[in-house]
C-alpha cells in the first residue's frame, strides 16, 4: 500500500473516467485498484530517483538511483532492478528484486567495492531502504493480501481506509490508514499507528503528474514522527512501456548494468 513512492505508477485505464459516476464501497476493490495504480502502471517502466534523507537536525544525505521495472503478471509478480549512481562511493551498487505475490521475494545485491554478488534473505521487508525513512516494502509494494481492509469514509476527494495486518508479528505497526484519491487511485497519504495508538510515521504524495497517460507520483515524502527525520523522493525521467526485455532482470545485470535502459530518455522533460 505504501505505494506512493513508486514512480512507475499507472492508474488503471478506467480509473479516470468511470469511477467518478458512482463511489465504490468494496474496500478490497479499492485497494486492488490502488495497488495497480501505484505499482503496475504500464508493462514496464523506468524512473530516476533522488532521495534526500534529513535527520531531525536537518543534516542531509543524498542518494540517486535508477529503477527499472517489468510486470511479469498483472497485479502479480514483478521484477525490479535498482542501480545506484550517487554518491559516487556507492556507484554501481545494484539490487535485483523478483517480487512474488503470495510467497517470499528473491533479492540479490551487488557491491562493486567488494566485487561481491550476494543473495539477500527474504526475511523482513520492513527494513530501511539504504538508510532512508522508506522501507524496502515501500519500494516494491506491500501485498494487499497481508492486511484486512476497511473503508470507513468516502469524501469528495478520497476513500479513507484502515488496514490491519493479518500477522502482526511481521510488522512494526498495529494498523495504518490510507487516503486514496478517487480519480487516480493513488494513495495521497498513509499514516501508521503503533501499539500505543499514536501515529508515528506518515507518507505523503506531494506531486502527481500524468506521464505517458498514467497519473504518477513524482514527489513524495515520508516523515518519521518519532525522530523528526524525513526523506524526500523525487522521481524524474520517467517512461512507461519502453519494452525492457526480461533478461535485463537477471543476475548478469548485477555486474554489468544494462546501460541502454539506464540511459535517460532524451525528450522526456
Amino acid at each position, binding site marked *: 500500500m505504501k505505494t506512493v513512492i513508486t514512480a512507475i505508477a499507472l492508474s488503471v485505464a478506467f480509473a479516470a473516467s468511470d469511477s467518478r459516476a458512482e463511489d465504490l464501497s468494496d474496500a478490497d476493490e479499492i485497494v486492488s485498484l490502488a495497488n495497480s495504480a501505484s505499482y503496475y502502471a504500464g508493462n514496464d517502466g523506468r524512473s530516476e530517483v533522488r532521495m534526500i534523507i534529513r535527520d531531525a537536525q536537518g543534516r542531509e*544525505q*543524498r542518494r540517486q538511483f535508477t529503477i527499472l521495472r517489468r510486470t511479469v503478471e498483472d497485479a502479480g509478480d514483478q521484477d525490479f532492478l535498482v542501480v545506484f549512481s550517487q*554518491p559516487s562511493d556507492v556507484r554501481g551498487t545494484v539490487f535485483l528484486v523478483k517480487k512474488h505475490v503470495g510467497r517470499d521475494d528473491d533479492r540479490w545485491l551487488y557491491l562493486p*567495492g567488494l566485487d561481491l554478488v550476494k543473495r*539477500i*534473505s527474504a526475511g*523482513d521487508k520492513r*527494513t530501511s531502504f539504504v538508510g532512508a525513512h522508506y522501507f524496502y516494502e515501500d519500494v516494491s509494494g506491500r501485498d494487499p493480501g497481508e492486511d484486512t481492509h476497511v473503508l470507513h469514509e468516502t469524501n469528495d476527494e478520497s476513500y479513507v481506509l484502515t488496514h490491519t495486518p493479518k500477522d502482526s*508479528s511481521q510488522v512494526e505497526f498495529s494498523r495504518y490508514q490510507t487516503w486514496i484519491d478517487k480519480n487516480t487511485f493513488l494513495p495521497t497519504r498513509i499514516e501508521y499507528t503503533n501499539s500505543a495508538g499514536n501515529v508515528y510515521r506518515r507518507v505523503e504524495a506531494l506531486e502527481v503528474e500524468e506521464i505517458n497517460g498514467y497519473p504518477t507520483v513524482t514527489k513524495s515524502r515520508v516523515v518519521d514522527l518519532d525522530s523528526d*527525520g524525513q526523506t524526500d523522493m523525487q522521481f524524474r525521467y520517467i517512461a512507461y512501456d519502453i519494452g525492457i526485455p526480461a533478461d535485463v532482470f537477471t543476475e548478469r545485470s548485477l555486474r554489468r548494468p544494462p546501460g541502454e535502459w539506464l540511459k535517460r530518455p532524451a525528450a522526456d522533460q
Partner: protein
Amino acid sequence: MRHSIIAIATGRPRAVFAIAVLVTLLFGAMLPRIQIDTDPENMLPAAQTDRVFHNLVKQRFALHDAIVVGVVNTSDANGVFNIETLSALQAISERILAIDGVVRNDVMSLSLADNISQGEEGEIRFSWMMKDAPTTQSEVDAIRSAVNRLPLLLNTLVSEDDRAAAIYVPIESKDLSYPISLQIQSIASEYPNTGEYHITGLPVAEDTFGVQMFRQMAISAPLAGLMIFVLMWFFFRSARLVIAPMLVAMITVIVTMGLLVGLGFTVHIMSSMIPIFLMPIAVVDSVHIMSAFSDRYEPGQDVKETISGVVDDLYKPMLFTSLTTGVGFASLLITPVPPVQVFGAFVAFGVLLAFIMTIVLIPAFVVRMKPDSLKALGRLKAGSDADTLLARLLRATGRLTPRFSKLIIALAVGIVLFSIAGVQRIEINDNPVRWFKSDHRIRVADAILNEHFAGTYDAFLVLTNEDDTITREFRERATVLLDSAAADGVDIAALRKLIQNTETAQGQYFGQIISATDDLLFESDSGLEPLEELLFAAEEAQSRSKYFQDPDALREVAALQQALMNTGGVGKTNALPDVVKVENRELRGGDNASYEIPATPQAVAQTLLQYQSSHRPQDLWHMVTPDFRSTAIWLQLKSGDNRDMTHVINAIDDYLHAHPLPSGVTANWAGKTYINVIWQDEMVAGMLNSLFGAFAIVFLMMALLFRSPLLGLLAMVPLTATILAVYGLIGWIGKDYDMPIAVLSSLVLGLSVDFAIHFIQRMRVLREELGCYVEATKLIFEEPARAIARNAIVIALGFTPLFFAALVPYITVGAFMAAIMVISGVATLLLLPALMSLGQEDTRMAEAGESQEGV
C-alpha cells in the same frame, strides 16, 4: 552607628519585632518557588568549554542520557537464556516504549536490536534479533549464538557470562529519570521469577538524589534546630531564654533561603545544606550576649542599660568573628563552580544577617522579658557552671598547659608532620552514585550490573577532522570551471551560489553541488566539458572529505579502541570500525577471517549502505556524523569514579603523544563520567585558591584587629593545625577527597579562627587588667574558655543530625564539621596558651624591669 542600632532595639522592641516578622514573611513567601537541581553538569558554568563540547557531542551524535535496566538470572543454568526471562525482557521492552519521555527509536534491548546473519543458503539475512518472545529453547539458543557474533551487543545488551541482560532507555530530559525509573520498576515487578531487576545509570542516580535531597532538607534542618535547642536548654536551663537565639536562627535561615529562591537560584546539593550550616552559626553570637548579660545583670538593675552595655562591649569581637566566618564562606566565590559560589555567597550573607539579627533582636527580646524570667537569669548566674565537669576539665587544662608547653608544642608539631604525610596520601575522587549509601538500591544495582556487564558508565572519545583543505581547494577549482562553463553560455548563477556558500554544512555541501551539476548537465547543450569536470571534481572531493570512511582512518580509530582497552580501565568500546567489520564479515560469508576493515573507501561506503538497510539505520549516526568528519568512540566503564576516568584520560594522552593523530584531526572527551572529572578538577583547584585567599584575608583581619602582625600570625596557628589535622585524617583513613570534603576547607578557616579571636582578645584584656601572665592564664580558663568550649560543642553537636542522613555527602559534612569544631577547640585551648607561655619566658624577664604593652 552601633549606638543608634542598640538604642532603636531597646527603645522600640515592638517595632523591631514587627519588622522582623514582616521581613521573614516576605522572604518566606518566596520559598514555595523552590527549584531543585541535581545535575552535576551544573557544577560547571554553562559556557565552560568541556560542558559546551559535551552538549555539542550529544547533539552531533543524537545521544541522550540513558537509564540502564538490568535483569540478572543466576538460578537458571542458561542464565537469561531461557524462555521466561527473554519473554519478560521482550514484554518489558515493549512497555517501556509506551512510557512518555522515552526516546523510542533509540531504546536498546535484545527485542529491539537488529541481527545480521547468514541465511540457510549462504544468503545474507537482516532480521530482528528477538521481535517476539521465543517459544522454544532452540529459538533461545539461536538468539544466544547470534548475540555472540555481534560485538556491539555482546557485553552491552547481554553479559558475557550469560547471566544478565540489559535494556538501555534513553530519555528526552534527565529530570524525567526518577519518575521513569519508578515506572519501569513497577513494570518489572509484574514479571516475578524471571530474574532480579536492577535500575541504574547516572541520570537515575542524580535525579533520585534530588528527590531524597529535598526530603533530607525537610528533615535535617529542623533536626539540627531541635538539637541546638536541647543543647542550649542544657547549658542555660531555661526554655524561655533559649527561644530568642532560636528565633534568630530561624529568621536567618528563612530570609537567606527565601532570598536565594527569590533571586532565581536553584537549590543544588550544596545550597541544600545552607540551613544546616546557618542554624548553629546563627546562635553563637546570641550565646555570647546571653552569657555576658546573665553575668552582669543584678535584680533591680536597669535592664536596658545593662543589655546596651553588653552589646556595646561584645560588638567588636562579634563583628570580627562574623566577618571572618563570612570571609571563609565568601572565599568560595573564587572557586569557579557555580553551586559552590552560590553556597558560599549565601552562607556569608546569612552569617552577617545573623549578626545583625542578634544585636537587634536579642536586646529587644531582653528588654521585653518579664521580671520572672530575668530572675531566672539571676539563678543561672548563681548556679553558674563553675563546678561542672567541663569547668573542672578546663581549669586543669589551664593549670597544666604552661607547665607542659614544650611538650604540647612538640606534640602539635608531631601531629602536624604526621598530618602533612596524611595530606599527601589524599586521593582525589568522587562518583555521584556513591552519594548513596552502599545498601541503597541504586548502589546495589550499580555493583551488580557492573559485575556482569562491560560497564554502565558512559564516556565518549570524539575524533574530528577539522582540516578544510579539500573544500577550499575544490572551491578554487570549481570557480575556474564555472567561469569556463559560463563562457560557453551556460547559466551557472544558481550553481555558483551553491559553490560559494561557505555556510553550508560540509555533509550536504558536495551533495547539493553534485545534484545541481548533474541536473545542469542534462539540461544544457553547451559547456558540457567543464560541467562534467566539475561533477567529477565534486564527487572526488565529496569522497575524500568523508574522512572516517577511509580504511586508514578507521584503522586509526580501531587502534585507539585497542589503546583504550589497554588502559585496563575500560570495559568495552563501541565504534564505527566494529560496525564495518561485522558487516564486512557477514557480506563475505560470515567467516571470522573476514572480520576486518575492507580495502577502499568505496567498499566501506557500500558496507555501511548495507548497515543502514536495517531496522535501525539511525544507529550509525550515534557513531559518526553524516559527513563522516567526526566519529565517537563510546566507552563503557565499570566504574564512575573520577580517579578511574582520569587514569584512562591520562593513558590516552600518553598514547596520543606516542602515536600522534594526523594533522587536522583532534581528539576530545565527552560524556557524563568525563564531565564529573572536569568539575572535580575545577573544584579542587578552586578550593585551594579559596583556601589561600581566605587565609590571607583572615590573617590581615587578625593583624588589624590585634594591631600586631605577630598576634595575627598566632591567631592563625590553631586553625592551620586544625586544617592540616582534618585533612591529614582524611588522608590516613583513606576517605576520598570528594565534593563535600573540598568545600569544608574554607569553612574550617572561617569558623575555627573565632575561637582564637576570643581567646587572644580576652587574654589581652586580662593581662592588661591583671598585669600578670600567670593570673591571666588562670582566669582565661574560667568563663572565656567555657564559652569557647560551649560554642564548639553547640556547633559540633548541631551538625550531628546529619549522621542520620540517607545521603553520604550529608553524613560526611556532619562528621567533619563535628571533628573540625572539636579539633579546633582543643587546638585553641592547648596550643595558644602553650605558645604564649613560650614567648612569656622572655617577657617575664622584661616584666621585671619595665611594664610592657600587651602580649
